[in-house]
């Protein structure tokens, strides 16, 4: 298979420095990282090792201080805010530990949210969101608001939202962190299923059992890759 098309994302010597007043915090100190099509990657490492920082940069939620980041051979590190927003919208789906749903919108409207920024008509938005929400097993709860749903259900809504634009990579930062182990296992089943269907998943986790689902595990330590 052609190497060029096989690699979706490529980070080269990415560094990220935060400034706390005059003190520099080097969250990433030179990370090079590829994501291949249909990969299933877990990122592990001690707290503060830069896991979240890395996936934020990979998912274009944040920009690196130095280093290059390519998306299908296009250099994204120089993209404008507008272009990055577009990339987040159509290339990636992101799942947070704390679900991050809009509390005033129904599950369905939360799932449809990314479509708004793609100028999809309301009718199509609803149709597409309904289809996805059924796939995560929430057909009967789609008109409920997040505060009427359980944690596991909220995370399913978040997954559906991440999937609604058919992303090339799905990122998840500790998706099971706020869930009990049984519910966490159910969520992991969904991820497994997504990868079986040909999706690409990158997740951060502390849980070895969760990481065991992945086909590749990357360990970070002090802002560097310790083990791939």
């Amino acid at each position: 298979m052609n190497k060029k098309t096989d690699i979706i994302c490529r980070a080269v010597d990415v560094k990220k420095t935060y400034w706390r007043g005059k003190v520099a915090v080097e969250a990433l100190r030179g990370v090079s990282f590829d994501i291949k099509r249909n990969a299933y990657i877990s990122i592990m490492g001690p707290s503060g090792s830069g896991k979240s920082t890395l996936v934020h940069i990979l998912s274009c939620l944040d920009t690196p201080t130095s280093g290059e980041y390519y998306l299908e051979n296009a250099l994204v590190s120089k993209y404008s805010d507008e272009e990055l927003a577009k990339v987040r919208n159509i290339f990636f789906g992101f799942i947070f530990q704390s679900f991050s749903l809009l509390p005033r919108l129904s599950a369905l409207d939360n799932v449809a949210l990314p479509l708004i920024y793609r100028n999809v008509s309301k009718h199509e938005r609803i149709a597409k969101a309904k289809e996805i929400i059924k796939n995560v097993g929430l057909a009967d709860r789609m008109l409920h608001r997040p505060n009427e749903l359980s944690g596991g259900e909220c995370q399913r809504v978040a997954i559906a939202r991440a999937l609604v634009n058919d992303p090339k990579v799905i990122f998840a930062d500790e998706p099971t962190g706020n869930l009990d182990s049984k519910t966490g296992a159910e969520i992991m089943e969904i991820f497994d299923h997504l990868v079986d269907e040909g999706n690409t998943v990158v997740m951060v986790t502390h849980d070895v059992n969760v990481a065991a689902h992945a086909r590749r595990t990357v360990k970070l330590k002090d802002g560097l890759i310790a083990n791939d």
Partner: protein
Amino acid sequence: MIELLSKITLSFQTFKTHRLRSFLTMLGIIIGVTTVIAILSLIEGLNRTVAKQVQSIGSDLIFLQKFSWVSTGHRDLDKLAGRPDLLPDDAEAITKLSSVEIAIPQTSRQLQKLKYKDNEVSNSSVAGSDENYSWVNNYIVESGRDFSRDDVLHRRAVGIIGSYIATNLFPDETALGKDLHLNGHRIKIIGVFKEKGTFLGNSLDDFILIPYTVFEKFFPRPRGTLWSRVYGGYSISIKAKDGMKIEETIDQVRELMRRRHGLGFDKEDDFELNTQQILMELYQSITNVGFIAIVAIAAISLVVGGIGIMNIMLVSVAERTREIGIRKAVGASNNNILAQFLIESIVLALIGGLIGIVFGMLLAWLVSAVSPLKASVSFWMILLGFGFSASVGIFFGIYPARRAASLNPIEALRYE
């Protein structure tokens, strides 16, 4: 377009959850727009009545008098009293000017009481002039006849009454041929004027007209008071020739009167030439003050209302930092967020404006109902109200919206 609509409905949603807060925020704009609309529509209504009234004087009429209509300070009453009287001879001389159609002497006096049998009217007036009075002043003799030259020359004790006197003194019979007693003198009614209405609130039909020659005999002028020396004598009503520039007529009259009064080139006029024009100018200078007041109120409420909106929008941005982060994470661009908050502040301001327009119209209507002022709301005022509040929404909403748009998604998501 559909997107815009859904964004607008989204912002309504926000207001519903914070009803009281939104209303308080809008208060500045509501008060501002209410006052502006109410005052504008009252001024507009006043403009219409006054313009109509002043125009009813006739744009081709000039009034030669001792005093000016627009500057009547008590201080110069002495000076005015010293001016030479204007006389019927002056009217005759002015009539001969090439730009003048006709000039007539006019004088009048207030009457205490006018009686006929059991009926009486009070506070009517008696006017003295010549046979051209009705022509110059746009009166129509509805029944009976007008004066003739002979009536004036031979001092016939005849009179024409206004419709108000006719209906009040002669409710069930004709007034023609009846005698009235004025100051103990008998006047025979030979005609009745058609009703003319009111001028600035005064009836134009509450008087009796007699030849000025008779007037001089029956109502000798009390010489004593300053007041009567200034206002008691004749004024000359001059009708300019058709198609003639009124300024030209004024110049001719001025020149003639200066000659007749023997004024040297270094002396100022000892008479005044009044026209409807100067009344209009006076009125406009008064309403200009009103307009300045409106601009001031508008400016103040713009700032007050705008700051209210800016404040609440900043609170809203802070409260919804996480929401902004989530929206950005799923692909909202800076412009999407900017638009969302800008639309929200514009909608907020427009709702305030709408309420203000409704209140303003109600207020104007209320004032019209309880006072003689007649308000007149025009479409442009409503547009102005909307335009005004929309600009407040944009101007004061742009800063909070920018702030929302420039938030970093990760930091916004981390915000508790």
